[in-house]
């Protein structure tokens, strides 16, 4: 599945996401201050980061053949996520256009829990340049 072949409105197959306690801790430590992480919670932005990484990997944009730059980000949070909690990522390609040799793609993601309730949502604009 290549990004240039996808039309706006394309829905990606839902993916499951579970962030373990160890993964949440590793994320908080990597960011720089694990002590700021509320106990028993996944850092809010870790959920969005995991979703965006899946999207980039899914499209083969992390294989070194193209240069990918993150241009803008929106995120919203409905409630905290607990480590080990199963979530589902539902992603839609909202826009996908080439301008002056660069491809601009906006992906919207929603993160829902086991009961189908949204816990977070995000919209990411990435710019892809041939390397």
């Amino acid at each position, binding site marked *: 599945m290549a990004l240039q072949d996808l039309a706006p409105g394309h829905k990606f197959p839902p993916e499951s996401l579970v962030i373990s306690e160890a993964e949440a801790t590793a*994320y908080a430590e*990597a*960011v*720089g201050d694990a002590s700021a992480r509320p106990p028993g919670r996944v850092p809010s932005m870790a959920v969005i980061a995991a979703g965006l990484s899946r999207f980039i*990997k899914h499209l083969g944009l992390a294989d070194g053949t193209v*240069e990918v*730059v993150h241009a*803008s*980000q*929106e995120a919203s949070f409905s409630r905290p996520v607990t480590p080990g909690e199963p979530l589902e990522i539902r992603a839609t390609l909202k826009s996908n256009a080439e301008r002056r040799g660069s491809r601009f793609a906006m992906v919207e993601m929603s993160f829902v829990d086991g009961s189908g309730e949204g816990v977070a949502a995000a919209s990411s604009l990435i710019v892809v340049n041939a390397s």
Partner: protein
Amino acid sequence: MTAVPSTTGDQLEPIDRTITQSQVEAYAAAAGDHNPIHLDAEFAAKTPFGRRIAHGMLTLAIVSEMLTSAYPDNWASGGRLKVRFRAPVFPGESVHVSGEVTKVTEKDDARTAEIAIVVKKDDGEDVITGQAFVPVD
């Protein structure tokens, strides 16, 4: 305990942090983002940046950390943000993450603080700018 920033002009507790290449590598492993522009010096040298850059989401995570500290319950339950990544952060550079309440709106008895988010480098260059919105009691 520091009061929750909920009045126009209130400043959030800023965070100053130096981003290192080892931190970028730890973040790539933790977030699952192995884009070579962050990790592969040879690849990055051929990009317009000329060298490896930190993940934008790594810097944004520090913004989220600041918001979590300022609004321990409400950021994760009703918070939202909208930001632009304006410049890359190169490993070894320091960033100053700040926020200021610019407006408080009230609708249906619910108050929301609008916060201007600014992340700058030591030389004053903007890295991230945007807004966050957090429910306040």
